[in-house]
């Protein structure tokens, strides 16, 4: 039954994603990509929750690596997206400087 419930969430999220993303203008496609990329680092949450103190050595090594890679993905992704979006300015903003 839980599988059905999870699939439910999955399918609805896909539709929501389609709706949201199709409204993003092409000017913002690169930040969209790096921003959504950062969101895909959500695996970090799973990696954290599974890195238990009573895990065996192999699972701890794998888990720590997963946490490290996912953190690079999340932190780097959001930071670089922010850096890009800072640069998008309107004409009026430019005159004000």
């Amino acid at each position: 039954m839980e599988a059905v419930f999870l699939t439910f969430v999955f399918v609805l999220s896909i539709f929501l994603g389609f709706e949201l993303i199709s409204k993003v203008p092409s000017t913002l496609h690169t930040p969209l990509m790096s921003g959504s990329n950062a969101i895909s680092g959500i695996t970090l949450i799973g990696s954290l929750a599974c890195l238990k103190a009573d895990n065996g050595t192999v699972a701890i090594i794998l888990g720590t690596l997963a946490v490290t890679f996912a953190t690079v993905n999340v932190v780097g992704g959001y930071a670089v997206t922010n850096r890009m979006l800072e640069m998008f300015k309107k004409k009026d903003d430019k005159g004000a400087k």
Partner: protein
Amino acid sequence: MMDTIALLINFAYVVSAGFFVLGLKMLSSPATARQGNLLSAFGMLLAIVVTLFYAGLDYKWILLGMAIGTGIGLVAAYKVQMTSMPEMVALFNGFGGIASLLLAWAEYHQHPELSVFIALVTFLSAFIGGITFSGSMVAFGKLAELISSKAVVFKGQHIVNGAILLAAVGSGVMFSMDSAASYPVFLVIVVVALLFGVTSVIPIGGADMPVVISLLNSYSGIAACAAGFVIHNNILIVAGALVGASGIILTKIMCKAMNRSLTNVLFSGFGSTTQAAGDGPQGETKPATAEDVYYILEAADSVAFVPGYGLAVAQAQHVVQELGELLEKNGTEVMYAIHPVAGRMPGHMNVLLAEANVPYDQLVEMDDINPKMESVDVCVVIGANDVVNPAALDDETSPIYGMPIIETHRAKTVIVLKRSMNPGFAGIQNALFFYPNTRMYFGDAKASIQALVAEFKGD
């Protein structure tokens, strides 16, 4: 007590998901996009912090992993040049993929006895995560030109890929039926996934990178989703699905902009087949000097710059902006017409021009400029080639026939900045160069535009 904490954590995830959705929604306008990204980041932070309240976590390894990851992520994000953004995105994307693979592996290692459904999603998480990782690394190598960005094709490639895929499906089924006894099979799955990522991206040429990056972006989301199924975590499923959908939409847009199907991009090794010599259009070109171009621009009422990947290579975005500003002072209307697949990733040119302080209201999309092209006095094509090749409209034998282009040839005058007469990425000679209203301005894009800026300032 334990359950109450878990319940609260999961409620916090719902809030995080809300922030992700809101963040993506605010990306629909450049004015709100930055705030949107910050909201999304806040949602992520919230999810991370509440997750740390789960009982029994091994904090020292968590801390170590997060410290290293944060360090690398921040340095990379602030050091990277805007022109290298496609590589950066490919790299981060690959990291997300491998994290999904590692998570699935760690979970399986810890609890090898899985139900068929969980075994299946574990397989998917590891397999898709593995493809995302190695595929992204190859894409990274191609974009950073560490390996040849040309399409690498060999005889029997489809057969090799087919065999790999068959092996993957076979081992996936075996693994799902009896996961407890299938540890070696799992290792085979990991190897096959990594191999498949390489063999499926290697035949794709540099100009098709926007499609590949979008697709890999989508994979990384789907891998995260599968990982969410493995550990029964809704936030992974929601966030992964959002990213998966985003990647699919971008892939579709990119394919449409090249008038090619996804299968064609993935399997044809485009750019590896060049036209037979002498087939391309031939004729006289009319070269122009900096002074000639200056007089043309000086007299123009409207100028549209058409940038391509060459602009990024020459790092010419800042001088182009400077020239644009000088033209505006001269009373000329300045636009930047951007083809959806110009550059090496979706929206690549927009980011470069934004970096150079070009206001985003001057950036015009292909579909908006084409109808009024006749009224544009001068189109300045900088480092773009195939996306302005009129053969796409009228030459049925051309490999790019049917691809929508920016129809610069219909402008009153076209100035093409080009290093030499070498054909573009697709290996196709450009008919535009021989049009009567076209002038060729040879040289390095940056130096050429600097010369024009000097002419304007010399007045």
